[in-house]
């Protein structure tokens, strides 16, 4: 049913529809609306789930790990400093192969302290072994949260669903909220591959010495790369059932056919880029929906006919450059494409149509 929803609420609706059982929460701007909406559902009796008011984000993700390891569907959400605080648990959740789904309302990292949106928080943890999706709209955030469980539970890796802080998390848009019946037909009941169970005792989280540790990392890497196939299939299945899809699941393009120039970006900025593309008609948009696993081959295919590529990064690796640009250049290193990169929108700085036009016209420097 189509409703006008705030993106955060749409995510909360998705969590409710996915029948999530344990939800540890902790407040931090700008993700707080997500646990607030979930709390309303729970306290109104609409949603039977265990809310844990953890005393920090570190304990929040720790509790999520404990719950997921005990065989139940788990969700949590955070941003910025909170994500940074629970850093070690991100790697642990992935290493333990737990299918946790976490929403991240992207916000920059201190210092200076700043509550507004850029991708620094989730980009800075791109090594942790979580899948990462960057949503462009409230609809996509809703759909991706549901798809995230399906993907996570097949591949046994945790998934981050990222929405731009404020620019997307706090925006009201029409969203088609699916019925429970519909979600049930798409997302089956969670059947964990392993769990803490007194009938079948296992040890989770042992010490792995050098002779085996690297093998486990290979398992994780293989799983993450195998997930590319699963992401694509889930995208197709969703399209067949609900008539909505996002490119091939990993990359979406807009107005790219016949163009030699493109702008590549992630998240809600893609909406502005579409608008400019309609206006100028001389370039297309390549939207990276899935940043981890990085869709190398898919990117190479999509850039087949390009001469010029402009990368917009809402993050910066101090001492080098934007993460998306670095990974894009890595994928296209031997292709004859001129790749230019700009850092924009840090700490919530507005990215205007003008800024993007300047980028297209080869503006000096690296900042927009």
């Amino acid at each position, binding site marked *: 049913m189509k409703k006008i929803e705030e993106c955060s609420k749409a995510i909360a609706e998705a969590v409710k529809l996915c029948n999530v059982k344990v939800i540890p929460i902790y407040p931090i701007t700008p993700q707080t609306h997500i646990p607030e909406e979930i709390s309303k559902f729970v306290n109104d009796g609409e949603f039977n789930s265990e809310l844990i008011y953890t005393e920090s984000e570190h304990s929040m993700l720790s509790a999520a790990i404990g719950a997921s390891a005990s065989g139940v569907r788990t969700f949590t959400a955070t941003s910025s400093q909170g994500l940074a605080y629970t850093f070690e648990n991100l790697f642990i959740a992935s290493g*333990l192969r737990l299918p946790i789904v976490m929403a991240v309302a992207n916000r920059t990292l201190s210092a200076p302290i700043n509550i507004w949106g850029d991708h620094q928080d989730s980009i800075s943890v791109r090594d942790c072994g979580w899948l990462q999706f960057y949503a462009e709209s409230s609809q996509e955030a809703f759909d991706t949260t549901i798809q995230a469980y399906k993907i996570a539970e097949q591949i046994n890796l945790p998934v981050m669903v990222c929405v731009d802080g404020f620019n997307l998390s706090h925006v009201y848009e029409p969203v088609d909220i699916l019925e429970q019946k519909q979600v049930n037909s798409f997302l089956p009941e969670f059947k964990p591959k392993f769990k803490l169970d007194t009938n079948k005792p*296992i040890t989770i989280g042992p010490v792995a010495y050098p002779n*085996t540790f690297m093998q*486990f990392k290979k398992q994780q890497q293989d799983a993450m790369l195998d997930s590319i196939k699963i992401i694509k299939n889930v995208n197709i299945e969703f399209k067949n059932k609900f008539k909505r899809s996002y490119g091939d699941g990993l990359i979406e393009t807009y107005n790219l056919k016949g163009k030699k120039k493109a702008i590549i970006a992630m998240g809600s900025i893609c909406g502005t880029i579409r608008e400019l593309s309609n206006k100028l008609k001389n370039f297309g948009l390549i939207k990276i929906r899935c940043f981890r696993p990085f869709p190398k081959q898919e990117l190479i295919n999509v850039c087949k006919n390009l001469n010029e590529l402009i990368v917009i990064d809402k993050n910066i690796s101090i001492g080098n450059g934007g993460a998306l640009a670095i990974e894009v250049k890595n994928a296209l290193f031997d292709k004859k494409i001129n790749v230019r990169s700009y850092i924009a929108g840090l700490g919530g700085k507005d990215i205007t149509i003008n800024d993007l036009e300047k980028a297209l016209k080869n503006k000096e420097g690296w900042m927009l």
Partner: protein
Amino acid sequence: MELKIGAIIEEPGNSLKNRKAGWRSFRPKWDKEKCTQCMMCWQFCPENAIHQVNNKRIETDFDFCKGCGICENVCKFKAIKMVKEEQ
């Protein structure tokens, strides 16, 4: 070695499969005559190397005894004596 997903170990208590006694310098010599089966040694062994059958202790499991000497220390009847491993 088959590596399970996420490094989980599915066989509970499988540390019993491999003998671990190479580091022992002393071993407990148990005098059955003096032993009153009070079970203090069974109770206090950190390794659970003193097993019991029908609530009575049996000979020390030398596959896992580390030779710490606690059993000798807690025995009130001088029924255990730590002797050098080579003996």
